[in-house]
């Protein structure tokens, strides 16, 4: 059986479990390579904090799985039936290209009790005390595992079939952020999606530099020496940009000696004192696509494993929608990675979100339907659960004029209007007229490009996406439909009335999928209108047949300009792009 097989059964028996995956030493105390000679109560608990031979500490992981007491426990699996109530989960949410969105948060309440330590303490037989008479499960666990932050919380959503199988579970992974308690015999484990690693308190980019000026430099100086000795080779590349005070300097480096080009990135050359910090900058010169910059800042900056980034999918999205999305900008000093990504999301119109099942960071451009995109339809008859469909129209998200300011002048100054050299505006005169919505303005300041191509695209695409009042919808689906839609994907909903009162089909972009407290039974979906005003079409790729030989699907998808002769084979003139 499998999760997908079980979820469509009408009498499915649901189960939710939680697994804490924490660090664990694979060695046995006193057995080579562990050199510890401790015995009895002084022996370690195979965790770092209790280790008696830290030099040879060999880190692997150990998973502690908890279930609700109501679950038909599979015989022979080490599962603690200590979960109290339901596992709470709020979904990650995307903004639709306006920022980074919201992190998914999971809360699991787990009861505390006495425990015999068997299966947990490798040396339980050597202890002089009786474990069930000394302390509680969580009291001991927290003392032995204080370094739980950033370790993995797995949530198992699934079913108890005729024969228990882990393949009947879908596993969602998150980062543990807190464990509160024990309070009143209970601990609460809190976890968030992996983008929590971009939070300000977790990581900044670029890394903090520790090199300083050996001696003062004047406004016109073109060389400088780093101190302490040797810091150049250990911390600075052969060339790049660095900030000293509010000035950005370009440099090439030989040992600790920098050859400088002054007042770069619009900053003003200033004299600098001995011991002023020479902070290495992170910069992108307008030839790096945002997907590459994003990879750099996530992997190098936030330490997110490269395996979490589906580069092939990112490349596909880049080729289709983000081809011109090149980043030009500089981080003069360590900044919040979350804030930078959020700015890139808005400047280049994409969403980034954690897929806890595939364990990937998905990147989706704000764009209309792609050629050949399959979109599932959800109806009032077969899918949408009674009483769950709700609509909210959000006028605050509608704009008929989009102003983009770009081409930052002085990168040491704030992102304010007077510090941008260029502006671009897109206006929908009709929708903004008094006969229709009336005018509303969205202003975007971007320090991340200086090309009018990016500004035009940002203004135009944002206007096309948000010039009609966005409709936010919420509805619930039975678990059989789980997997038919995904965050940032699209769904067609046949549940809204047209002007005649008949149901019409509309396309929405999914912004949240929330298993919440009803995991395995039903789930809540939030989505907002995905329409783009105006007409758009793709120019047919080279291999596409001529219009009269093309399939209906190809004719619907692509714009046919003309055949090789310049006209169509029926004698009609070819189109002109004017």
């Amino acid at each position: 059986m499998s999760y997908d097989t079980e979820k469509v059964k009408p009498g499915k028996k649901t189960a939710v479990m939680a697994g804490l995956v924490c660090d664990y030493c694979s060695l046995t105390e006193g057995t080579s390579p562990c050199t510890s000679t401790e015995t009895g109560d002084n022996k370690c608990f195979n965790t770092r904090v209790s280790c008696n031979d830290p030099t040879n500490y060999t880190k692997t992981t150990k998973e502690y799985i908890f279930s609700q007491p109501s679950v038909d426990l599979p015989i022979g699996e080490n599962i603690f039936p200590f979960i109290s109530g339901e596992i709470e989960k709020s979904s990650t949410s995307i903004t639709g290209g306006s920022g980074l969105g919201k992190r998914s948060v999971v809360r699991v309440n787990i009861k505390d009790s006495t425990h015999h330590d068997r299966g947990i303490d490798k040396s339980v037989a050597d202890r002089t005390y009786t474990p069930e008479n000394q302390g509680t499960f969580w009291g001991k666990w927290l003392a032995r595992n204080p370094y739980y932050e950033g370790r993995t919380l797995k949530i198992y959503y699934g079913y108890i079939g005729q024969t228990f199988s882990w393949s009947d579970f879908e596993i969602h992974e998150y980062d543990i952020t807190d464990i509160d308690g024990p309070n009143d015999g209970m601990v609460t484990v809190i976890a968030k999606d992996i983008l929590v690693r971009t939070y300000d308190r977790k990581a900044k980019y670029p890394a903090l530099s520790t090199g300083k000026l050996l001696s003062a430099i004047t406004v016109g100086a073109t060389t400088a020496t780093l101190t302490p000795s040797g810091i150049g080779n250990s911390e600075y590349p052969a060339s790049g940009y660095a900030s000293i005070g509010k000035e950005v300097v370009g440099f090439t480096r030989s040992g600790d000696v920098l050859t400088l080009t002054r007042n770069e990135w619009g900053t003003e050359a200033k004299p600098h004192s001995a011991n002023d910090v020479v902070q290495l900058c992170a910069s992108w010169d307008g030839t790096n696509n945002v997907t590459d910059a994003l990879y750099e800042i996530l992997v190098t900056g936030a330490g997110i494993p490269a395996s979490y980034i589906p580069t092939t999918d990112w490349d596909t999205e880049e080729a289709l929608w983000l081809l011109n999305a090149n980043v030009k900008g500089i981080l003069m000093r360590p900044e919040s990675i979350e804030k930078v990504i959020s700015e890139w999301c808005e400047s280049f119109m994409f969403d980034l979100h954690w897929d806890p099942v595939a364990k990937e960071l998905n990147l989706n451009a704000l764009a209309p339907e792609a050629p050949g995109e399959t979109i599932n339809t959800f109806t009032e008859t077969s899918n949408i659960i009674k009483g769950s469909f709700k609509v909210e129209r959000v006028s605050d998200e509608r704009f008929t004029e989009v102003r983009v300011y770009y081409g930052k002048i002085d990168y040491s100054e704030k992102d304010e209007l007077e510090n941008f050299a260029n502006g671009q505006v897109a206006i929908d005169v009709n929708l903004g007229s008094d006969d229709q919505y009336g005018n509303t303005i969205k202003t975007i300041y971007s320090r991340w490009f200086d090309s009018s191509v990016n500004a035009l695209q940002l203004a135009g695409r944002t206007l096309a996406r948000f010039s009609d009042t966005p409709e936010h919808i919420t509805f619930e689906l039975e678990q059989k439909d789980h997997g038919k839609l995904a965050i940032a994907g699209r769904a067609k909903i046949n549940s809204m009335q047209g002007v005649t009162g008949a149901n019409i089909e509309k396309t929405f972009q999914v912004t949240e999928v929330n298993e919440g407290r009803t995991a395995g039974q039903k789930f809540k979906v939030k989505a907002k209108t995905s329409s783009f005003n105006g007409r758009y079409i793709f120019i047919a790729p080279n291999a596409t047949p001529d219009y009269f030989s093309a399939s209906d699907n190809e004719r619907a998808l692509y714009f046919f300009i003309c055949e090789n002769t310049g006209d169509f084979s029926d004698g009609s003139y070819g189109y002109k792009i004017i």
Partner: protein
Amino acid sequence: MPGKIGYHNLYVESGVTVTASTEATGFEKENAFDWFGYDWWKPTATGDSWIRASFGAAKDADYMAIFGHDLSDHGSSIKAQYSTNGGTSWSDAFSAVTPTDNNTLFIDFTSVSAADWRIVVTNPTTIAAIAGVMIGQSLDLPHSMEIGFAPPSIVPDVDLRTAVSEKGVFLGGSQVSKGITGDFTLTYIDPAWIRSTWKPFIDHAITPKPFILSWDPDNYSSEAVLAWVTEKPRAPTYIDSLYMDLHLAFEGTL
């Protein structure tokens, strides 16, 4: 027929020495008599495996029970044996049985007095695990269950959740198992029995520790459940000057 309660367990009695034929790592023999339903004793080899309780003096027993097992999944059989010669030879307390499901198993047998007792599991090809083993003297209820008693295993507790579409079409349903709940009342009980027999059981139950309830072992032996109390049981009350009644509410699992 009158029901039986199994709570007396030689494996945890004072002075016992427990040994096992084998035990897999993480499935130690102690797991089989710690009352917990979420850890297991599991031998390492197929064929006959045993877990033995030895005493310096003979102990009476008239029932064997196991809970939290998967004997049925493995086609395994089980029996209780006793030895009166220090383990040199063993006699069957009852013929081996091969469970047809993984539910709680309660088997009563003619009372025997012996210093060595063991449960023998025969695993033909793969190895079963057992969360709890019990051998001891059962508490025999004074009379049969009374009118109104609902055998707890017939309708287990489940949270049923059905989904219906906006247009009224059945979309599916799911259930969350909640184990079993039940209660019984017995009337016209001798107050002396309440004090000599019922009170020690209540002392065990409010520890709290689980017990086995086989409400009619003669006719419905397959309906035994592992049960526990979740709040202080109602105290037995006098219904006249000669008799009392008792009541027990419990939760549990099949």
